[in-house]
């Protein structure tokens, strides 16, 4: 049977660099989510986007849920892709600040640049995790010839009781 054993980046270790990056992104997601839930107004003021506090709170909940899922799952890859989708929603939301005349256009641009950077990191991590798995989760192997009874199943039935 051809081996589908995943080749991790660090031979002799169970965690690859991508596993560690995913874990860091999980913690980052929770920290950002808590900030968005607790201080949406301060956050929106800082990045120059006003009137979006309810949306930012919702995004905070999303970030926390994604972060917990990343940390709790043996397979964080789909949750990192969920972060990428969230990043795109964040970018679209923050971009509305560019149309607002609030004198904080530079802050908005900086926030968009940061979001773009995080999106790239998320995509690199998710792609790396996918590559380590070789695109497959589980190979279906056929072990129907492995009875474990050299003299056959029928001979084994009750053999210990007879003895």
């Amino acid at each position: 049977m051809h081996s589908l054993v995943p080749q991790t980046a660090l031979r002799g270790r169970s965690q690859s660099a991508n596993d560690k990056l995913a874990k860091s992104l999980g913690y980052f997601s929770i920290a950002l989510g808590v900030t968005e839930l607790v201080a949406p107004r301060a956050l929106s003021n800082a990045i120059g986007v006003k009137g979006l506090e309810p949306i930012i709170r919702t995004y905070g909940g999303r970030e926390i849920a994604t972060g917990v899922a990343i940390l709790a799952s043996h397979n964080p890859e789909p949750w990192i892709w969920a972060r990428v989708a969230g990043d795109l929603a964040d970018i679209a939301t923050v971009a509305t600040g560019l149309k607002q005349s609030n004198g904080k256009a530079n802050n908005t641009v900086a926030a968009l640049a940061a979001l773009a950077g995080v999106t790239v990191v998320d995509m690199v991590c998710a792609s790396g995790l996918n590559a380590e798995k070789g695109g497959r989760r589980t190979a279906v192997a056929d072990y129907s010839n492995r009875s474990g009874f050299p003299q056959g199943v029928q001979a084994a039935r009750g053999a210990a009781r007879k003895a």
Partner: protein
Amino acid sequence: MKALVWHGTSDIRCESVPDPRIENDRDAIIKVTSCAICGSDLHLFDHFMPGMKSGDVMGHETMGEVVEVGSAAKGSLKIGDRVVIPFTIICGECEQCKRGNFSVCERSNRNKDLADKVFGHTTAGLFGYTHLTGGYPGGQAEYLRVPFADATHIKVPDGIPDEKLLFLSDIFPTGWQAAAQCEIQPTDTVAIWGCGPVGQMTIRSAVLLGARQVIAIDRLPERLSMAKAGGAITINFEEESVVERLNELTGGKGPEKCIDAVGLEAHATGSIDSMYDRAKQAMMLETDRPHVLREMIYVCRPAGVLSIPGVYGGLLDKLPVGALMNKGLTVRTGQTHVNRWTDDLLNRVVENQIDPSFVITHTEPLERGPEMYKTFRDKQDGCIKVVLKPGANGANHA
């Protein structure tokens, strides 16, 4: 020497650690020829078992050759002896050992005070496990120090491959004890949850012990195919209702004997209650996911027996104890009293009644152990049982 070392959740590394040495005159050192990754190692890998410390050497399924013997063990062992090491460390002299209750040896846990506080009374020391059971360095390594070595060993003959003998250390006697403590009658239906390595050994044991019908429950086709090969009727819980199917196969009365070979990490998305348990685990409000226990209590025939070789770690929620009590079910559980069974089981291997090597799907060098933990846990590559070979280079997949 090289060894597999625990560093935290999902973090096991193959590293150089100091060679073991004789620390007590009842010790022996063995050169490891084969070792294996056990399903209960995964509970440590996933860090559901409390009491692990960074730097702990993993492994409790080990065999090899004696290379050094302490003065007090020389009457029982000599250099060159081929031995399988039981995962339970036993003194052989305390009241429990004399009764054959080896997994609750009163003297081998060097962290007895800690275990007394957590469990009420201590249990035996275990290799490569939590510090609650002594924190002894394990056998996924090139060498292993065996405490109380004059009692803690199983001598095995030459001429039989390691692969047929290695599992006397744990999963074969564990499966056997799980079936034996059910006191199987020729009219019994035995239902076994989980077709991992212990589940597979339990199926073979129940067949040998003469159950009328053995039913195996899992969701992975490769594991179900191996269960069927061993003489079991299979139920894929992702495709059919376990309770309905078990009742159908037993004339509506339920199986007389139910065996939990799953333990604390039931498939997290396999049922509503497991999802609930997983959420509580994430919030540190519960330690285990006892879906199988709930299902066994519900479906077992009144006055039946529940046997639990599956490992549980701490505090469980929403157990239907009312049904357990009113149905008059008997619960039997515990770590395996390995040496109680191994003379008999070794004979069965020598006599070719059973060949436990059927369960091995992967053989790898020790250095690839950390990756194989991940492969085994994530059930990739058709993985059911991994054997590791210190000093080997090549890999062999089933």
